[in-house]
């Protein structure tokens, strides 16, 4: 399934993703952490084998047709099990229930990208299959290598 993939090497810490997400959802489900020489945006990974889903005692966490992990607000009891289980520290309890990134289902239904991905000025966030992502990275690296060889090639 497609997911939001993060390339911290392109993040400029502008936090456009946070602002866009908060505008849409009332709070931001993506957080940009800034360091002295780089920045890392982080949001729900919608894991293939999601510990939050496995830990949920009431079955409040489920997957939609695209594979996004969502919360059924009627079933959530705010027990914090998902918070403890998530290796990325993503789920938060807001009021009495858990909230987190839902991959913008309304936009996906219209064939659009999740908001944070759509707005990211530098392309640090992409929405694609991890296999597409790794292939395009592999290709970009190969191209750079080839370019260097071409530059040093005599007679070209």
């Amino acid at each position, binding site marked *: 399934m497609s997911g939001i993939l993060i390339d911290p090497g*392109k993040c*400029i*810490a*502008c*936090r*456009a993703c*946070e*602002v*866009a997400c*908060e*505008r849409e959802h009332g709070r931001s489900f993506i957080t940009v952490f800034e360091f*002295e*020489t*780089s*920045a890392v945006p982080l949001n729900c990974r919608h894991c293939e084998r999601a510990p939050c889903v496995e830990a949920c005692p009431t079955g409040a966490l489920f997957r939609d047709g695209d594979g996004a992990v969502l919360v059924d607000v009627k079933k959530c009891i705010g027990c914090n099990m998902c918070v403890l289980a998530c290796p990325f520290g993503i789920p938060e309890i807001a009021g009495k229930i858990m909230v987190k990134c839902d991959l913008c289902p309304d936009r996906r239904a219209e064939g*659009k990208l999740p908001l944070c991905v*759509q*707005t*990211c*000025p*530098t*392309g640090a966030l992409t929405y694609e299959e991890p296999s597409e992502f790794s292939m395009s990275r592999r290709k*970009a690296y190969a*191209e*750079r290598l080839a*370019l*260097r060889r071409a530059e040093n090639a005599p007679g070209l």
Partner: protein
Amino acid sequence: MKVPVVCPYCGVGCRLYIERTPSGYRLEYADDIPGIPNENGRLCPKGNAVLDLLSKDRLRKPLKAKEEGKFVEVSWGEAIKEVAERLREIAKDDPRQLMFFGSAKTFNEPNYLIQKLARMLGTNNIDHCARLCHSSTVAGLKAVFGAGAMTNTYRDIEMADVIMIWGHNYAETHPVGFRYVIKAKERGAKVIVVDPRFTRTAWFSDLFLQLYPGTDIALANGIMHVIIKHGLYDREFVEKRTVGFSELKRTVEKYTPERVEEITGVPAELIEEAAVTFARAENAVITWAMGLTQSVHGYDNVRAVATLIAITGHIGRPGNGASPMRGQNNVQGACDLGVLPNVFPGYQAVTDPEKRRFFEEFWGAELSGEVGLTTIEATHEAEKGRVKAYYIMGENPAISEANSKRAIRALRKLEFLVVQDIFPTETARLADIVLPATSMLENEGSLTNTERRVQWSFKALNPPGEARPDWWIVSEIGKAIGFTGSGARGFNYRSPEEILREINACTPQYRGITPERLKENLAGIHWPCPSEDHPGTPLLYTERFLTPDGKAHLASVEHSGPAEIPDKDYPLILTTMRYVGHFHTLTMTGRSELLRKRWREPFLEVHPDDAERFKLKDGEWAVVETRRGRYPVRAKVTKAVKRGVVAIPWHWGANVLTNDAIDPVSKIPDTKACACRVRPVSEAEARKLLDELREMGVVA
């Protein structure tokens, strides 16, 4: 219905849609418009927060002051009558007592009108905020290449093999434009960053030249020294398309990398490497912004950098060029349309009798051939009582002017101050009449981005209360003053389209940029566009430069320090900067909860060694003092700044500290380097000081 608009913030000129929904308005990304500057409709945080411009404290009715800061509501008729009468009276006495400010935050059409109004009243005292940002670029590039605009497009940045980013925190000030740098880098391009601070732009650098503020000429000369010594300049280009090379060679001869290292603090081997990398590149661009321009020798700084571009032949071809980055979405347009004291629309000199005769005939009025006042000069003249009235459209000099306390003193001294704006600004508090204008989303017209791309923005929202479009306000005032002639000879306009057609008729670069064409083509048209069937000109100088002889005039400039250098009393150099989530004097972004909560307050960046020396602690309060004022701010201890340098974002009012010494040619103030000292203070003392400054109206 989705209405296509242009983002009201920076000079990238991003497109977005505003859509009406049952519950109000929402923003939608313009990912379906091909060829726009923000490909796929991407937006930065400010762009994402544009709908917050609809906040509750917008100006809704014309106001008249009973005393300073105390206003009563008046009708439009009454407000316009009073403004017209007062302007007419003062002009009758001596039109040079009037000063007009256009605005890089409004469309081309009202900017054209306000300079027409000033000039028909008999004065060239008209200027706008470009004076404080890129006036040195305009003057410096004109001297070397013949015109003051960006020579290429964002696409050319993407195509470059080496991108030199000079005095410009590109990633933070123009995040969407920075996309093109990242794309180039992905392709293998090298990035050279020249900055006193290790900015987020510098994160992406292959070479980082951390110079002391105000030493740019020495560095540029050092780089050219290396290029010339190793014979890396473009001999053919220098010979065929430039003049002044032998003098340049003599001048830069003494700028050896070792000597330049002493002046700038940049290691000699880095200077060598940067020079070789830049000169050897097949395609290279230089982009710059305030770090280069805001200096007492901003004009020379720009000429030196332009000369570096010219001797390496990195201009006039795709993937090459000089790219000054504009801060506001219509700086380029306001300059193009003559909101400058020395030129009519289309950069036609007011001192040229032939051009003046054309406009006298066109507007049907006698025009002054005397170059008018720039903003800082007008402030100084107002202080002396020689300028008596200001008409300010969408500017906030109380915060934006260097040495802002002095600016406020001058504003208080005026006999008559009109402020036309969308929010009650610090400057509006001092006004006699406040005119409520519409924001860019509530109005339509054309505007010109950094790449000289003219785009049409459509009306997406209804204005609050009785707020009116800028073009309407200026034309009503023009008519009330008595300029009621027909066509171009008066101010009888019914729409911005009509005004743009008048612009087409008198501005050579805009001749073919008609409202009809712009509305059809949402990606816009690059000027010069000399006729209606011309596609526009994305790339300048492919054949010849715009100088009279068609050649680039290489400049030989000597290094001299900033206007103020550190001494015993003021041992540090202060420089100013910006935050990605804020815009200029906060009048717009300061009202957005989304932005304010993320960029809550300013920080003083200070090197760990200096923090220890002056006993500052991370996160604790400090007071920064210069010869102009004091400013309390929390300290942020970071190696991002060099030892001996401190930096503050200027949005909140740090201009109480900055130096208003100006560049003799471009009249830009030296806001990027002045001497200062710092000391720790208690929170209580800091708050008290802030309250005092707020009372004075110099901090937001």
